[in-house]
């Protein structure tokens, strides 16, 4: 019973965080802010997927979450590398 309320609260928190990150992607003082906001968006979406798996009681979504984590990390590093050097693989 209380678990349902806690799950709702967690959904609300991560969703609000996602909205804040989205605002930061569109309004940011520099390009590194946008990279950081995109990285945080990946992390928040991944947690929403896991929380959805808890709500439905099925574990089929965890592979998707794992793939999200990996592609998020690689894309952040590639974007930083591009900003830093003008090239990703030299």
């Amino acid at each position, binding site marked *: 019973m209380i678990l349902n309320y806690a799950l709702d609260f967690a959904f609300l928190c991560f969703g609000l965080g996602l909205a804040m990150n989205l605002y930061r992607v569109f309004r940011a003082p520099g390009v590194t802010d946008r990279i950081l906001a995109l990285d945080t968006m990946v992390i928040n979406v991944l*947690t929403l997927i896991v929380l959805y798996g808890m709500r439905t009681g099925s574990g089929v979504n965890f592979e998707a979450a794992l793939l999200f984590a990996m592609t998020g990390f690689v894309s952040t590093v590639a974007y930083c590398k591009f900003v830093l050097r003008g090239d990703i693989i030299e």
Partner: protein
Amino acid sequence: MDQIFEYILAALLVIGGIFAIVGSFGLLKLPTMMQRLHAPTKATTLGVGSALIASMLYFWFYENKVSWHELMITLFLFLTAPITANFIAKAQLHRATDKSDLPPTGVGTEWATFDPEVSSVNPDLLHDRDPG
């Protein structure tokens, strides 16, 4: 026993949610870029780890199966968050910080992003500064 376990799970979820929202709010609120870097890379990672561990315990207790995916995701996030932060800080140093503002490195070489041999790829990138 059931009741106690439910309270533990609920506490983990609530703590994770609070940490995540603090991290995302810090990304909006803190004044300089280097301070903003700290909020998501520390607070959000901790919150996500808490929520993932809650999910693992949930499936362990209610569905009676141990799923190692969450532990793997948590470990992966905890390992990659410092690397991401380091890369973003490096990009920020390169784009928005003037060379004369940095402290001396203390060793024989320059800061790596301003080393002329290293940064010889595209010198134009050094000139379009962000306000920070």
